[in-house]
């Protein structure tokens, strides 16, 4: 009897996480977008096993052919199957997005925590550098970094990561500033908790919801930036099936073979769109101020 009563009380009690899942379940579009992203992740892993043609399989008898039963997305100027190439490009675009944004998120979060918590000259230096990075228009900064490092996919990842850092640093810093004087942090401090314990155990969790939203949204925009750089000839080099590169390649055949540009573009669009929709849904579900 007592046990049952206790159990009832437990179910009545709503944790932030259960609150989040309850709200997130109502975000139908975001759930669909999340499902699509999962599908993309699966494709990214198994693409090379499931594609009907090799990504560098030339077929000079069917050059620049439109979509058909044999080639769903048609073929390019070497008779390569565009469907296979787009599918295999998923791995590149997703990894570029994930790696660059994760790097930016980890670095930015650390900088934001340190700057916000310790204040003083450390904070001034960190924020001044962030301001300077933000004073370059995003894509221009990335282009500048790639111009220094030289073209290539790895350098694009570095460039995209660098211009993501200040966004995370600012976000985490403002939460840190709010939380460092809160009652529970002061209590932890008076109980003798070390700085690193306070930062990672008490302050960081408070910033996590904002970080998650920023993270999801940034992946979308990073994929867009990285493909723009590849499109401009500063990222992946042929014959890599990177989506931006596929599209830039297709511009030569725009008048005769539209499908060469249409499908890679559609892939970028759908991917970025689903990350943005998921980000929107997460924000609505995580925002405690938002009324239902």
């Amino acid at each position, binding site marked *: 009897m007592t046990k049952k009563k206790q159990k009832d009380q437990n179910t009545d009690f709503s944790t932030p996480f259960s609150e989040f899942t309850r709200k997130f379940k109502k975000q139908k579009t975001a759930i669909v977008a999340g499902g699509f992203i999962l599908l993309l992740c699966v494709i990214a892993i198994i693409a090379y096993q499931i594609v009907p043609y090799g990504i560098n399989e030339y077929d000079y008898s069917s050059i620049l052919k439109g979509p058909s039963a044999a080639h769903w997305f048609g073929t390019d100027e070497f008779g390569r199957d565009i469907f296979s190439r787009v599918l295999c490009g998923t791995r590149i675009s997703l990894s570029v997005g994930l790696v660059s944004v994760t790097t930016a998120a980890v670095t930015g979060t650390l900088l934001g925590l340190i700057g916000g918590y310790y204040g003083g000259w450390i904070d001034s230096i960190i924020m*001044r550098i962030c*301001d*300077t990075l933000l*004073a*370059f*228009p*995003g*894509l*221009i900064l990335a*282009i*500048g970094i790639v*111009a*220094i490092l030289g073209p290539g996919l790895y350098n694009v990842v570095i460039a995209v990561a660098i211009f993501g850092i200040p966004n995370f640093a600012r976000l985490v810093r403002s939460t840190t500033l709010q939380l460092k004087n809160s009652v529970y942090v002061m209590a932890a401090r008076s109980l003798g908790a070390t700085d690193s314990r306070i930062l990672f155990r008490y302050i960081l969790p408070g910033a996590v919801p904002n970080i998650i939203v920023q993270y999801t949204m940034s992946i*979308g925009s990073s994929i*867009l930036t990285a*493909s*723009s750089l590849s*499109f*401009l*000839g*500063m990222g992946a080099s042929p014959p890599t099936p990177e989506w*931006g590169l596929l*599209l*830039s390649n*297709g*511009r030569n055949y*725009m*008048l005769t073979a*539209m499908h060469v*540009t*249409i499908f890679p*573009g559609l892939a*970028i*669009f759908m991917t*970025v*769109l689903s990350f*943005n*929709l998921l980000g*929107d849904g997460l924000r609505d579900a995580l925002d405690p101020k938002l009324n239902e």
Partner: protein
Amino acid sequence: MLRYIVKRVLEVIPTLLLITFFVFMFVRMIPGDPARLVAGVDATGDTIEVIREQLGLNKPLFTQYFNYMAGLFKGDLGTSLKTNRAVSYEIGLRYGNTIKLAAASLTWSCIVGILLGIWSGKNRSKWQDYTGMTIAISGISMPSFWLGFIVIMIFSVKLKWFPTTGAGSWKNLVLPAFTLGSSIAAIIARFTRSSILEVMKEDYIRTARAKGLKEKIVVWKHAFRNSMISVITVAGMQFGHLLGGSVVTESVFAYPGIGSYLLDSINYRDYPAIQSLILIFSLHFILINLVVDLLYAVLNPEIQLS
């Protein structure tokens, strides 16, 4: 008020110094000898020495930076390696085109974005809202180079309404401006919507409705005006986006502006030009942000008081 303006203007100075320093270090951060880079691959040792002398690379770093800054104040941006003419001259040839493109894009995207945002906001959770916001989020997620190709295929190739490339008449401006402005229109629409929804909760809106004003007047006179303060800020911040985007858009439409000049310079490894263009893009961005901040201060009564 004046104190705020002065403080804000003074705050720009350290950022400007840091930016010029970054840009100055730009050529020096490229792996390898800058003099050799400038001279080209097949230059002889003597030529490289002459260039090192010309560029002042044999002097201490601080002196080099000082000379660079002194040059900047005189409007000297260096000499283009490709054409051997002053970089400032090369930029001058193309600058107007980019400004025209940016102005056209920002104008249409502000008008359309704000209207779309209000339309969605005042019809919250109805079909208008869903349509508006679907258009907006698609606009943000669309790769601009892809959108550019699609509009070229539809409006230039199929319908033959506009030329595909080049600059000169207003007809050349329509498609690039549409492409460049679309994501900004989308961002402004989303922001306007949330800002209208925020304002609609205020007491003075309830008062306006309670005294029997027409919904049109409530929306346009009360809600619109007050939500515009923050919309202006966002629109201004998008200007940086516009500058970055101009590189991609100008490349798609072969539009002769400073964005496509930056790409040409990168392909040619014309470092003085790359350096100056990055500096110019950032300067514009900083100045626009400054103007937006000041405008915000003038428009927002809360800031004036503090």
